């Protein structure tokens, strides 16, 4: 029997003020945010992003492109037409405007390596700016391949010019598309590839990196956080692999309860997807994660789930029970 909620886990939110705005390319504005009283903002590492909360159901994510040492946050916003005007609204924020932010969070952390290949398309350059500083400080070798429509559309070219010939700027109207086949032609296990940009670039890089050792490629997709659940819960099957038992989970019961009702002893405690006690290995199937424990990478990997709150996206899960 579930107890009433006694624990609530959420991400940090702050009200910040736009301290500065400046145009850094055609259609790209750099915004600098600080806390009203100049208190410290939450610390972050390269690859991190924040949500700008423009309205209760209108969030936009932006990579932090300044330095983790700054007392302010910096983001660069591309004015792009989108159905609800989110990025337009952010682009227009004047100096002195107040906005609520959530996070930061980081699904794109820079992992220690001897060598990095940074591949950026358009506004995807933003998370890589602090990554480059970090790579230099850690003594790693690195190169940046930066594609975009034209020089005037590509932000931060002057800042990147300071790094010399490790940076390859490839505007499409001058040099065509990035030669990914050549950039990624030599897989090796001491190199990490970081890529951020439009979907076609990500897809192409992903395809070429299938020849690389697993775990070499790190991608950032600016996918909106999915919170809305359409429709009622569906029943599904859960195969308990080790016991050779199949359990039907009804639409109105949790996987945890169904497993226990089948006589299988599983540990659970908070029953709210918070404490991690009921974490169970997943062998097959698409998990509908509803917990507050796993991060985006872990959720995507679908190796594990919190059976007290999470369910199945399809019809069947195979669990390590």
């Amino acid at each position, binding site marked *: 029997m579930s107890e009433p909620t006694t624990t609530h886990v959420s991400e940090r939110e702050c009200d910040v003020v736009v301290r500065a705005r400046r145009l850094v390319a055609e259609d790209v504005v750099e915004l600098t945010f600080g806390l009203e009283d100049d208190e410290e903002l939450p*610390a972050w*590492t390269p690859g991190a992003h924040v949500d700008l909360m423009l309205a209760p159901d209108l969030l936009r994510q932006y990579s932090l492109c300044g330095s983790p040492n700054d007392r302010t946050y910096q983001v660069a916003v591309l004015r792009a037409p989108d159905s609800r005007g989110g990025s337009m609204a952010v682009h227009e924020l004047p100096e002195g405007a107040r906005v609520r932010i959530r996070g930061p969070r980081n699904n794109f952390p820079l*992992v220690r390596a001897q060598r990095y290949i940074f591949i950026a398309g358009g506004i995807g350059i933003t998370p890589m700016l602090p990554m480059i500083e970090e790579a230099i400080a850690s003594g790693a070798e690195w190169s940046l391949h930066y594609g975009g429509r034209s020089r005037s559309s590509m932000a931060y070219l002057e800042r990147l010019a300071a790094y010399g010939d490790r940076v390859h700027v490839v505007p499409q109207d001058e040099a065509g598309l990035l030669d990914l086949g050549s950039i990624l032609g030599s897989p090796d296990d001491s190199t990490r590839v970081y890529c951020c940009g439009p979907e076609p670039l990500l897809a192409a890089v992903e395809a070429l990196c299938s020849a690389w050792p697993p775990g070499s490629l790190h991608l950032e997709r600016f996918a909106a956080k999915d919170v809305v659940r359409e429709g009622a819960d569906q029943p599904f099957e859960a195969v308990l692999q080790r016991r050779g038992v199949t359990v039907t989970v009804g639409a109105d019961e949790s996987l945890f309860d169904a497993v226990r009702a089948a006589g299988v002893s599983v540990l659970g405690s908070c029953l709210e997807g*918070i*404490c991690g006690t009921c974490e169970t290995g997943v062998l097959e199937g698409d998990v509908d994660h509803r917990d507050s424990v796993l991060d985006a990478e872990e959720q995507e*990997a679908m190796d594990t789930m919190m059976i007290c709150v999470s369910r199945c996206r399809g019809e069947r899960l195979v669990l390590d029970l």
Partner: protein
Amino acid sequence: MSSHTHSPARRVSNVPHEAWYAAALSTEVGSTPLARRVLGQRVVLFRTSTGQAVALTDRCVHAPVALSEGRVQGDEIIAPYSGFRYDASGTCTSVPSQERVPYGARVHAYPVHEDGSFIWVWPGEPALAALRRPPSTEWLRDPAWTTFGDQVETRASIRLMQDNFADITHVTHVDPEIAPPALGDGPPPPLEVQVSETSVSFWREYPPAPMPAWQSLVMELPAWRRLPQREEGEFVSPGLWVDRWTVDLEDGRSARWIFTHALTPVSENSTRHVWRVSRDFSPSPAVDGTVTPLFTRYYQRVRHLLEDMQRIVDEDGPVFEVRVAADAAGSQVRRIMDRLVADEVGVRD
């Protein structure tokens, strides 16, 4: 230039190295060298003639002697036995037996940040230190706050200690006299936990409850008085916890406590713990006299319990442990610590 540096080896494996840790109090370091271990590494701390704090690897490049057994002269430290001299950058500047200093002779110099209370050192890649702000503890130097405390080496891993600070529901059981009655009155109020990429904070709001007798006494309030109270905790960075307790005095004012914990791993199973108790009311020494022994005793009890826990883990090994909803903040802290370590080591998924 190439260097024959004793580069600090990674001796404590489950703790982030790319972080600031308090190696000493500002008042512990002067022209007398101080030996400390930080993440298992031998560190010597001293000040140059201008008062600048320096942290070097505590081992001479010529012989396995501790620089901390030597002496400071001017802006340099002189190793015992070998007589090699090192400056604040760790460079060997002279040796007794020849004109020429051996090429590249130097010891590792740790980035140092001094904030007036602590000397923070960075045990990781030195160039990365400039890219991470050291944690701030400005209330420890603010005259509006009265502070006392102590430090002790606890034979328990920093991970066990962090589990301890992430959840205060044990306080009633460890020390009923010091514990606020609010903590013991049945199931606790809802726990709010907020996370960001590298930090966790949590809090609970308690409905009006009496204070423990000692607190009523020092706040000069009648013992029967019931006041709303608030518990807060914050995992600021791997080396710093800040907990708070606030009493609402109902006339718009509040009486606040801040509990500062600087944690520095000495080894895998031992941690230097600096604890400070600060209050923004009743600054008199008489109040210090009343509360200091209470907190000293409390932290001693916690230390003994943590050392017992470490002993059991050392003897019998770790086992799966049942967690409860109150562990929500601690679970998030563990995840952040594990992720920071994995990123540093470059673990492949």
